[in-house]
Every structure is written in C-alpha cells, then in structure tokens.
C-alpha cells in the first residue's frame, strides 16, 4: 500500500474542490440566471472536458503551460517553478478537467429556484449578497453537495490527465490510480489489489454519503 500516493490523491481531490466550488457556484449561477449572447457556446465549452479523452486535455495543458510556451515561461518567471510535473500543475489540470462536474449540477440547482422566489427575496429587503447566502445557496445546496462529491470521486479516479501532466513523481504527482498502474507493471498484484480495493471503498462511501445527504436535505424542498 502506497500511503504517500493515497495522500497525494486525497489532497488533489480536496484541492480541486477548494478551487472549483467557488468558481462553480459563481459560474453555474451566472449560467442559470443570465441570458447573454454566445451562452450556448460557453455551455458547450464547459462540457468539453467531459467528452474529450483526458490525454487530449493533458496534451493541450502541456502545450499551453510547457517550458517553451509564452504562458509557461511567464509563469516560471513569476513563481520560479514550472507548472507541468508538479503538484500545483496537476491541481490546475485537474480543476480544468472537473469543470463540467461542478458547473453543470450547480447550474441545474440554481435553475430550479423560481424567478418568483428570487424576486420575493428582493422584496423582503435582502441585498443581492444576502439573497445568495440565505435563499439561493440553501435551496441549491443538494446540487452543490453533489457537485463537490462528484468532483472528489472523479479526481481520485483520474488517470490520463495525471499521467500526461504530472508524470509519476512520488509524493508530488503519483496518485493512487497511477500507483496502481505502476504496481501492475511491476507484477506486484498484491499492492495493486489493496490500493484498488481502497479506491473502491472510497468511491462507494462517497456515493452513499451523497445519497444519504441528499435524502436528508430533500424533504426540505416543497
């Protein structure tokens, strides 16, 4: 059992949620409530990571942030470190790969709040910020939770992007899913088996948690 890899995986999952959830709540709400030109294109772009092979995503990430690209060089000059093959780079790529998993459920969650409810909140004297915190977020809460759990579970299982962008550096970019592949290559079936079982248990546990939580939140909705 590669505990370091498990730790990297969990950190990557938690980090991806930490980055994406605020973004998803802002952007999902925007897509839910606003009408603007090119909305269809934006919605399509949000969904792209869902249908693209992770290797394609990784490829473009490397091209965009590689040491030879202007963006990559700018980042290196600024931070003193390159993005590819670091945990930070992996986190960034993972966030991009998970955009649809966060934005879409949250968008649906906000869309389910009727315009009348939002208008009523405004007529109760609530400022836009108070409306968001006291009315919209509590009502969209099950969707936000679903988004977070989906992202976490999906990040744990991510393989293609990790291998392309992160390589396989222990303690840095070797996640559990990559470690399993690694162990299999070395004919270490036993270690691979233990780690695979661990991932399976985590996956089932998160899904059970989602269902339980959504049931608990569910009856509050009319």
């Amino acid at each position: 059992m590669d505990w370091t890899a498990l730790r990297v995986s969990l950190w990557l999952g938690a980090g991806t949620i930490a980055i994406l959830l605020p973004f998803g709540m802002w952007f999902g709400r925007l897509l839910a409530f606003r009408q603007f030109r090119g909305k269809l294109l934006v919605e399509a772009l949000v969904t792209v990571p869902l249908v693209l092979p992770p290797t394609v995503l990784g490829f473009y990430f490397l091209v965009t942030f590689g040491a030879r690209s202007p963006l990559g060089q700018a980042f290196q000059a600024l931070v003193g470190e390159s993005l590819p093959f670091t945990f930070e780079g992996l986190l960034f790529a993972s966030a991009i790969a998970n955009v649809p998993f966060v934005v879409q459920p949250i968008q649906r969650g906000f869309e389910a709040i009727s315009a009348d409810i939002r208008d009523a909140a405004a007529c109760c004297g609530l400022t836009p910020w108070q409306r968001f915190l006291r009315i919209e977020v509590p009502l969209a809460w099950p969707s936000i939770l679903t988004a977070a759990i989906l992202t976490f579970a999906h990040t744990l299982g991510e393989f293609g992007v990790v291998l392309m962008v992160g390589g396989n550096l222990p303690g840095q970019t070797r996640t559990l899913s990559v470690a399993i592949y690694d162990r299999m290559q070395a004919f270490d079936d036993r270690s691979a088996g233990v780690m695979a079982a661990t991932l399976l248990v985590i996956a089932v546990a998160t899904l059970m948690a989602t269902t339980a939580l959504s049931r608990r939140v569910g009856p509050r909705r009319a």
Partner: protein
Amino acid sequence: MWVRDVPERRLSVTLHQPGPIPLDVEFACDAGDVLAIFGPSGGGKTTILRSIAGLYRPAHAAVRSGADTWADTDAGTFAPPHRRAVGFVFQEYALFPHLTAAGNVMTALGHRPQHERRDRADALLNLVHLTERSGRRPHELSGGERQRVALARALAREPSVLLLDEPFAAVDRTVRRRLQDEIDQLRRTLDIPLILVTHDFEDVVRLATHVLLLERGTSVAAGALNTLMSRPDLSWLREAVGLGAVFDASVARRWPDRGLIELAFEGGMLLAADRDLAMGTTVRVRIPAREVILATREPEGVSLHNVLSGTVSAIHADPAFDHVIVQVAVGRVLLLAEVTRDAIGRLGLAAGMRVHALIKSVSIDLLAVQPPR
C-alpha cells in the same frame, strides 16, 4: 399597527413604453385606499406591480412613494427592490420552501434588531390567524395558509405600499371570501396605499375604493369605484362583467319576518333580501343595470319593493350593443339601467327627465360587509 411620520404617503406611478410589454399608465393611490387594477389576463397588470417594486424596468418610469423617489428614468434614478419599502404578495405566494412560516416572515424583518424579530414574526402570524402553524414549512400548509404567510411576510417589512398580485387566484371560493374580508379589515388599520391586481371582478367590487381598467397595458378608465361603476360608456367592462352601479349603504332597519332589510344610501332607502346583518352594518351594494326597470309614472300594485325617483343624467347608445344604458341620478347616487332602444323611443327618455327606477329586492347584490364600529 405602526405609525410613520411621513405626511404624504401617496404612491404615484407613471409608466410608458411601446414594447416588448406595452405600458401606458399614470395613476396615484393614497394611504388607506385600495386601487384595483382590473383587466384581462396578459394585459400587463403584473408588469405594473413589478415596475413599482423595482423588479422590472420600463423604458420610461416615474415611481414615487411619499417623499421618496423610487424610479425616475428622466433623472436616471432607480432604487433596486431591496431599497424600496414594498410589501409584495405574489400570485403563487413564492414562499421560501426551506424556511418555516416564521422563518419566511423573519426574512423580511432584517430592518429590525435580531432579538425583536422572533416576537415580531409571531405577532404578524397572529395577525393573519396562523399562530399555531408558525413552525410549518410551506409544503405542509394549505393554499389559504400559504397566502396568509405571504401576507404576513409582505407586512413584515413595514411597507409604504402593499402590492397584491391576483391574491385569491389559487384558493377556492369559501377561502377566498374569508381572505377578502380579512384583507378588507387589514387595510383599514394599515393606512398605506394598497394596489390589487386581479382579473376577477368580485375582488374589485368587494375590496377596491378605486379602479383602473387596463387593456393591453393601457389605462382605459380610472377613478373612484362608485364613479367608475356608474359610467355608462365602459364597453369593455360591459362586455366582460356587465355594467352596474356600486355604492355603500348602511343597514337602517330589519324586518326578519318579511325577510327584508332596509338600507340607507345617499339617495334614499332600498329594500334588500335579509342577510342577517346587524343594524348599522355598512354594505357595498351593486345593482346590475340589467335588473333595473325604468318607468315615467310611479307604478302601483307591483310585487317589487324598490321604486326610486330620479332624473335621467345620461343616455349612452353604443352601436356595438343592442341595448342602451341610461344613467339615472337618485340623490347623489348614479344608477345604471339597461333598456331596449324601443323603450327609449316609447317613453321618450331624454336627459333631465324625471323617472322611476324599479328594482327587485332580490336583484340587489350585497358585498363587502363591514360591521358597525
């Protein structure tokens, strides 16, 4: 309930725009008055309420409440909804589904200190007779109860205008009657302008003091309820609900054994079917024009109870209708009578002529009963 030191609490509204929702209205409503905006569905009624609340921004708008300017497109002034002291009761109530009845009301109490909110919410729920349901969520409440929560929530903000959008559309007839009476009671204590949007004529005659008839976003006619209901020329109203004078009267005498009550109004006395009303009770009376018969001489030996002498004040013949509307001044009340063109010629009816209006006691509609003070 509460008193504010604003000398003038009139709401004045001017809205103009060619589209996408055409609007062309200008009206004012004083504290204590109920302005009913009445017209067919899809005529822009709700848009007017939304514009008052700041939820909709028409191309040209001037909305003033007392000394406050909420919107003035010419001056570039626009206050967002949360800065306007409006109480808005939405058609489907729009209660917050994740909050209890008390929680819904407390949401609108942000202007009060935290420790007062609970008591204030309880007091408001008590006012709408919902004390024992305060811990329930909207989906556990009946339609009428939800409406009451919505009303309590709208009042919680201590609004300087109360807006009601089709408030009785989603409840059945018996509940509707009770809610109408309660709102009628309430508005007497509130002393703020109340704007009621409805497509139900009964809401208008039971609750309104003033009426604005709206057709495709344009005000067709506006004025005090009794003045407007005595106009013979409102063809749209005639087509929709039929014309008929509306005025207030009070119970002056009772004859339970005859099954009758005598009503005093600003033009004399009327006999109406007994409704078990106490002496001094104020009732709103509607006399449909179709039910009024005109005679040039006082008839004898007729079964009907009411023979009111008056003067023909106007005759309105509209080519779109077969019958003619005759307006008769009885004291200060203007009655309407719908008669055939033949009758006009036969009786030689003309403005200024003395006539008798004959009305059956059972033809008199008694609405909006207000007990003696």
